[in-house]
């Protein structure tokens, strides 16, 4: 099996973004042509991924063991395609987005896919950078002070964390003499201080991208200032990329010394779940609210890594899907209300249940999925994470998950109750606007969320195949 055919999804995305650039060149300003190309490209990428998946290939290492194409990376490809496609759809309204919007989204998606495959330090860093650089531009793509602040903040802090990450990777290389993850565990005794320092610094770099407390400070401002579609992409895609590379990095490179990082990540997970959801309680701006709740969800994801088990890996991988679906669904509603013009607050939701009952009903579904109520995918995800925590004999993590869920629910209830308030806000819903692209996203999100909640078996099966290869070598 040649490299070209096993990396077909990545090549499809790369080709698509070049063609989309060509499309920008030949079409007039604010044309939808690049978006169409990008959308078709993501569908093509999905098809390519599904095709590869259905062939049940053995894992292959490409480019001198720097990329590993396996079910894990293919599942990540699925997630990234959903994130990228939905983002292009949510940013469809070309008026305020730049022409390069779909291209940048696809480029960032390519970085996420690289992270899914990455099996050595070079591709790890490359993936992180390819993911981040387009996002810096996207964050600042609206020319208002908030957007500028978001872009600058994201860029400076992101560059800083990249530096730390790079330093950590260099130390690891220095200590082990190898770039490949799988060599680390055996290359040198694990109590080498240089290796330990390198691991810690590299973890800081990755945890920054995942927005784990205490490396989360950039999230609320960046989420608030960025355009809605970009925020949804950050909330979904970035988390996918950062979480999967964290898992593979630790599970491949440091599986022999889980005591060195497992408890640390466990405590960080606890802290993140509690702090993220607690601060979310006080937010009135919806994007900030989702920012903080996203921090809390990152804490949930971290449980799966911290327990260092196959069940944990599977649970984390599974949780990304319902979380992401709820994110894109909720942001679809937000874009309908904001129309790209304003920052949506809880007050803008007032009366939604009476004026737009269907949108309100869908919003309820997504909030309940965030909160982990049964018959939505979020519940199944939390259930899986609980299994992971308890199988690893970590009742503390289980209780933390429950407390975090509980606090989060309080945060999600406030927008819900606001929707049922009677018309007290004349300004609310003034800019209501719906286009077909948002409806497509909504349908995908709601079908996925309910489907995962009612019959998760196929996805559970997929996830179990994806994370099967760990600890076999």
């Amino acid at each position, binding site marked *: 099996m040649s490299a070209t055919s096993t990396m077909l999804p990545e090549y499809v995305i790369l080709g698509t973004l*070049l063609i989309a*650039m060509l499309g*920008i*060149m030949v079409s007039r300003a604010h044309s939808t042509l690049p978006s169409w190309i990008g959308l078709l490209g993501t569908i093509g990428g999905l098809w390519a991924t599904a095709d590869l998946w259905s062939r049940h290939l053995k894992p292959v290492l490409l480019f001198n063991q720097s990329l590993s194409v396996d079910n894990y990376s293919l599942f990540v490809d699925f997630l990234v395609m959903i994130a990228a496609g939905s983002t292009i759809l949510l940013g469809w309204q070309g008026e305020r987005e730049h022409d390069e919007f779909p291209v940048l989204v696809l480029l960032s998606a390519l970085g996420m896919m690289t992270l899914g495959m990455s099996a050595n330090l070079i591709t790890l860093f490359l993936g992180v950078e390819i993911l981040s650089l387009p996002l810096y531009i996207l964050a600042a793509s609206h020319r208002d002070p908030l957007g500028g602040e978001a872009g600058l903040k994201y860029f400076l802090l992101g560059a800083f964390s990249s530096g730390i990450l790079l330093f950590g990777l260099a130390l690891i290389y220095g200590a082990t003499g190898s770039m490949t993850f799988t060599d680390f565990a055996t290359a040198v005794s694990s109590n080498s201080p240089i290796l330990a320092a390198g691991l810690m610094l590299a973890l800081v770099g990755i945890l920054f991208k995942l927005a784990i407390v205490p490396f989360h400070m950039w999230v609320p401002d960046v989420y608030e200032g960025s355009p809605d579609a970009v925020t949804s992409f950050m909330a979904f895609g970035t988390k996918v990329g950062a979480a999967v590379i964290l898992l593979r990095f630790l599970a491949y490179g440091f599986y022999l010394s889980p005591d060195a990082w497992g408890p640390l990540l466990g405590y960080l997970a606890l802290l993140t779940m509690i702090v993220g959801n607690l601060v979310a309680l006080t937010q009135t701006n919806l994007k900030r609210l989702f920012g903080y709740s996203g921090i809390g969800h990152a804490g949930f994801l971290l449980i799966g890594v911290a327990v260092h088990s196959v069940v944990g890996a599977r649970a984390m991988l599974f949780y990304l899907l319902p979380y992401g679906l709820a994110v894109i669904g909720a942001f679809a509603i937000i874009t309908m209300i904001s129309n790209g013009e304003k920052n949506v607050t809880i007050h803008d939701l007032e009366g939604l249940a009476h004026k737009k009952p269907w949108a309100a009903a869908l919003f309820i579904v997504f909030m309940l999925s965030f909160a982990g109520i049964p018959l939505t995918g979020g519940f199944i995800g939390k259930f899986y994470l609980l299994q992971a925590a308890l199988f690893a004999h970590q009742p503390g993590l289980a209780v933390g998950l429950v407390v975090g869920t509980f606090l989060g629910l309080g945060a999600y209830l406030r927008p819900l109750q606001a929707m049922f308030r009677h018309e007290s806000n004349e300004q609310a819903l003034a800019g209501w606007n719906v286009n077909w692209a948002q409806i497509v996203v909504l349908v995908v999100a709601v079908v996925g969320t309910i489907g995962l909640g009612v019959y998760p078996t196929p996805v559970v099966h997929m996830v179990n195949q994806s994370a099967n290869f760990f600890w076999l070598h």
Partner: protein
Amino acid sequence: MFTNYTALLIYFIVAFLSAFGMSFISNLLGPQAPGGLKKATYESGIAPEAPVGYFSVRFYRVAMFFMIFDVAVMALYPWAISLTDLRQAGFEKAVFFLVIVAFAFAYVWNRGGFQWD
């Protein structure tokens, strides 16, 4: 004890001393006449018009394009050296790389990136 690294160390010390020594000695021995025009910005002999500090963003853009394409071309040096070992496969990949760079160049050109205003 006199290894190669000791030589390197001596080299560093000598380099450091000569660089800082020279500026220190010139400061010590040279004539001192502070103030006046010496503090003003030098603009080819013309009196400066506006307070310095703000360059037009166009300069940054040009600098950025220079950096991007310069760095891209720099990747060709190691390739050129090892071309004989890499043979045709290496050649194909470099061509692919150059096509992408050329594509980016065309894109920037098309989007008006090289226009001064």
